[in-house]
């Protein structure tokens, strides 16, 4: 059974707490959630654990070749970019930092293809810099739904600001409402109503 619904979340400074707030509002989803959190390598596991505390979904650190699956949360590892192959499989690729970061949200989001068809949501949360803006633009272009965090709730309103500035963001919301929005969207896709 393939993964039809995919959520890609990018976050940086102030991210972990924020992701937790997003996850807290979500039941086990019929979607695969891919989280790209900018963090030092040695806290990857801790952050994954924190996320795991917040949701009933399975939370794993990305491994090369990991298959996307509904009800699975994949956390990108530090020092590698997480690319999607055929919208199905995670590939960890080494390479230059993109936007000064590795993993870069742009790399992950831009690896999403329009074929094979998946329902996708792109989310940019708090952080410094501009990683994720081009990713959002790309995701919108291939028919995905895009969300960025609002200024009031952002620890650092950098990445969400740049993402919103692309004009390709569908919703600007605080973390709890982001969680609800993702939940609603995935539910509607599962019920057969495809929003594109």
């Amino acid at each position: 059974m393939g993964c039809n619904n995919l959520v890609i979340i990018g976050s940086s400074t102030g991210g972990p707490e924020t992701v937790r707030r997003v996850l807290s509002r979500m039941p086990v989803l019929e979607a695969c959630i891919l989280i790209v959190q900018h963090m030092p390598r040695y806290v990857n596991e801790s952050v994954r654990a924190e996320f795991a505390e917040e949701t009933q979904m399975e939370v794993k650190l990305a491994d090369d070749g990991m298959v996307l699956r509904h009800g699975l949360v994949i956390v990108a590892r530090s020092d590698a970019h997480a690319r999607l192959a055929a919208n199905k499989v995670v590939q960890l690729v080494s390479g230059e930092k993109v936007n000064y970061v590795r993993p870069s949200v742009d790399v992950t989001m831009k690896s999403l293809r329009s074929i094979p068809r998946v329902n996708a949501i792109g989310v940019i949360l708090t952080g410094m810099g501009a990683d994720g803006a081009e990713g959002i633009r790309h995701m919108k272009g291939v028919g995905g739904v895009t969300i960025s965090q609002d200024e009031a709730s952002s620890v650092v309103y950098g990445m969400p600001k740049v993402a919103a500035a692309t004009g390709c963001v569908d919703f600007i919301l605080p973390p709890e409402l982001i969680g609800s929005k993702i939940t609603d969207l995935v539910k509607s896709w599962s019920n057969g109503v495809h929003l594109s």
Partner: protein
Amino acid sequence: METKIMIVDDEPDIRAAVCTILEASGYGVLPVESGARCIEELEKGFRGVILMDVMMPEMDGWATTKKAIGKGLLEGNVVAMLTAKEDPDADLEEVAETVVNYIRKPFKPDMLVSTVGRYCRWLERDRNAHLAG
């Protein structure tokens, strides 16, 4: 080994306040009054949670962080910025992966304690993982 917290701030009262609060919760705190001193301590081998004030004379928090990154001194450290400023200045993309949080002054003590506690747990887990092999 207990994880220590380094507070880097040019304001003595703020250093004192942070120390008082964290020590009361059982954390070891290393107060440092400048970016240069911070680098020194890092070079001496400090590993732990660093609370870095942004507005400091001579070398501000960003410059200190960048310098530490450049020297590879932040490996094994968790850095959170402390500042009265609303928004960070520009040109901070380089530190995005390193700075996990941005704490605004004035902060509530329990917020600080819980946040610092989290970061300590992160580092401990990592240490334990290493120890475990």
